[in-house]
């Protein structure tokens, strides 16, 4: 087997590293060229992803059956109990009805008020180990636009960060880069919630005096203060832990999100944009 000697490689790798670092710097500035390239790539990938997703779904279902065995077993037990109750009431529920129930749960958004909404199916979860975004099957043709908040039955899911004609990308609340202004449902104290990774609770930095009592289970909703990226009153989660923030001058809250962002089949995009 012929292996090229490393002589001369250093220059090439130095150039490539320099080019990559330049791209990182450009990317951090969120320039239009990068955005356009990513939107173009999304347009190209979406139909291929859809087709391959359909073809490989039996295999993926089998995989989930093996790797998610314990979860599936628990879910199976729960569904059996539900089925028994349903049968007792003389009502059968088909898979289609279950899907419809999921869909209507996603539509149950009392906080959305009069805001128009678009319900979308989740077509893909995070595409890499370091990605915290999902892809949905509705785009600009359906009225979805960058900046709109996304929610599911229980509360805030994330925010649309990219939209093409037929698809959109939603940054999840678990993304370490995700930030949302929040307020406590009781007392009304303001803070900023930030994601801490998949399966992790949110951290909320507040200006609440450390001597103040904040009860576990207190609801946290979007603040919607002036120029906020989110409308007010969308449920975000509940307080799971209260601790002193860095410096000990204010409280930091650990908040359990209401929505398990990894387990979504449908999301509802609220057609609301910051002014």
């Amino acid at each position: 087997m012929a292996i090229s000697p490393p002589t001369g490689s250093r220059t090439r790798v130095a150039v490539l590293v320099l080019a990559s670092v330049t791209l990182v710097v450009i990317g951090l500035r969120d320039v239009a060229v990068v955005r356009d390239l990513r939107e173009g790539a999304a347009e190209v990938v979406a139909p291929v992803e859809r087709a391959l997703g359909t073809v490989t779904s039996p295999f993926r279902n089998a995989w989930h059956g093996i790797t998610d065995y314990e979860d599936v077993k628990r879910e199976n037990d729960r569904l059996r109990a539900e089925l028994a109750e349903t049968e007792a009431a003389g009502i059968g529920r088909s898979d289609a009805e279950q899907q419809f129930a999921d869909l209507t749960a996603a539509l149950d958004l009392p906080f959305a008020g009069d805001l128009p909404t678009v319900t979308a199916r989740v077509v893909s979860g995070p595409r890499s180990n370091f990605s915290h975004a999902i892809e949905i099957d509705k785009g600009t043709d359906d009225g979805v636009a960058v900046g709109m908040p996304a929610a599911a039955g229980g509360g805030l899911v994330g925010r649309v960060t990219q939209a093409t004609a037929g698809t959109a990308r939603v940054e999840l609340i678990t993304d370490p880069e995700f930030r949302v202004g929040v307020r406590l449902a009781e007392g009304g104290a303001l803070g900023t919630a930030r994601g801490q990774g998949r399966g992790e609770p949110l951290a909320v930095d507040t200006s609440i005096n450390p001597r103040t009592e904040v009860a576990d289970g207190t609801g946290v909703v979007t603040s919607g203060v002036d120029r906020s990226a989110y409308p007010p009153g969308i449920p975000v989660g509940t307080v799971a832990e209260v601790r002193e923030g860095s410096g000990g001058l204010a409280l930091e809250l650990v908040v359990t999100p209401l929505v398990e962002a990894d387990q979504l089949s449908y999301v509802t995009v609220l057609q609301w944009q910051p002014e």
Partner: protein
Amino acid sequence: MRPRRWIPLRAALVVLAALVLQVSVAADLRVAGAIGDLVLVVVVAAALTGGPDRGATYGFAAGLLYDLVVDTPFGLTPLTYALVGYGVGLAGAALQRTSGWWPVAVAALAGVAHAALYTGLGNLVGVAYPFDDLPAIALVVGAGAALAIVPAMRALWWVHGHDEPDRLEVMFR
């Protein structure tokens, strides 16, 4: 030897196939919350079959394409892939005469190294990727790379051609 004019086309085909499979299929196959990385496997295979130059070049190009379809900081994947490709190329050249299982071991280590490098550099550019997630990601990416490296090396030999069969490949025939 392959006609040189077909090499870029075949290389693009292999990288794109890995990318499409990654985002359409592999991304849904989670183990302990983490997924394998088929694109990284192609980069490692390129480095093992062609040395550090080829590893770094494939790493940069494949990383650039991958970054177009994810929401992670743009440029970070080409940077980490190019560094891993270069490192694996050097390691491959140094370990050429050891056990026939060296590609598997090197691929596993490359997966672990990439997970650590990405997490570290991500934090350096201001994205607080949790280090708690690193063990699961490193384990899954490393194991996935070890499993997929032999077919990936065959794909790279299809692209670039090779004169002598690898000992592992002879064993699997």
